[in-house]
């Protein structure tokens, strides 16, 4: 009997300790947060000026499906895939989809970035990807790097290197609640 009482008391203490821990708001082991730039991570907060001097903020993307594309004027694969993202912006913008281009400046531009964008028909907002911003997205290893966030700001797809527009389109349609 005494041993049963002891067991009950122990369980009760453990249970109460657990309740107390929960109330304190400490992160539970199962609530592990994905590292920046990994699938499941949150869209980082940022506020930058676009290439024309206007503000671009992560707050503008709240509630939207967002595609963030890291690119450079000297990156041929970037040049190849960017017009596809503009098409997606045109097609799905009214449904709550937004694209932002973040331009690398680790090497001199091969041409004026705004002219570059105009030539390839890209009109979505673009800003310079300074190091601090790259780090917020978990660091960028290759170009292009494209990230797709859902309406809750959760990273759903990340592709390093060229990817076909259709691959992103098939991924974003369900996020916009559009059937196949």
């Amino acid at each position, binding site marked *: 009997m005494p041993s049963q009482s002891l067991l009950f008391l122990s369980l009760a203490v453990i249970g109460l300790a657990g309740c107390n821990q929960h109330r304190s708001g400490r992160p539970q082991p199962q609530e592990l947060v994905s590292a920046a730039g990994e699938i499941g991570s949150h869209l980082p907060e940022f506020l930058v000026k676009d290439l024309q001097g206007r503000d671009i903020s992560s707050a503008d993307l709240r509630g939207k499906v967002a595609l963030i594309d890291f690119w450079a004027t000297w990156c041929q694969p970037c*040049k*190849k895939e960017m017009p596809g993202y503009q098409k997606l912006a045109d097609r799905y913008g009214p449904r709550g989809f937004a694209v932002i281009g973040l331009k690398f400046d680790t090497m001199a531009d091969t041409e004026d970035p705004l002219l570059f964008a105009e030539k390839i028909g890209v009109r979505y907002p673009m800003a310079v990807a300074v190091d601090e911003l790259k780090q917020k997205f978990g660091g960028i290893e290759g170009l292009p790097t494209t990230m797709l966030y859902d309406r809750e700001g959760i990273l759903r797809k990340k592709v*390093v290197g060229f990817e076909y527009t259709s691959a992103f389109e098939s991924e974003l349609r369900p996020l916009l609640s559009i059937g196949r």
Partner: protein
Amino acid sequence: MGARKLGLLFLFSSVLVPLSKAQVQRIEMHVEGMTCNYCAFGVKKHLGRQSGVQNVEVALLDGKVDITAKGDGHIAPAQLLKATYDSGVTVAQMDMTARGRVVKDRAGNFAFQVEPDQSFAIAPNDLLKRIEPLAIVTIYGELYRKPAGEEIPDLSAPLKLVILNVQKKE
């Protein structure tokens, strides 16, 4: 041997001689348009997502891309050529290491068969004469060279193999 017999040999060669582990083993490309390490890494990741690819090594300064096929996978050089062009990089030359056998069709044209459903027309040369028909060999050869003066080559044209080295005869 008559043409009819050769034709039959070509048609049924996959049944007569098993081609276990006959396949494209390695693809090497000389590319143009990789301008920085970031782009090179992007090309590596893009090609690494293609079907049958085990590993991709990219040498930025040399403009070389070295692709190793999965041991039991099917790799399609024409698909890799297209994927490379799609990624905005130009392929100057593509070479292949593959195990397979030389077969001959009814019209007398030679082909290198690497899998029952994958073969490459062979451009005849002296090395070809040294290979016994239907013998299984591992060869190294050129599959593609960018046509001079063409900005956008016709990638739908079938790849033609120029044997550069016979590495192994079985």
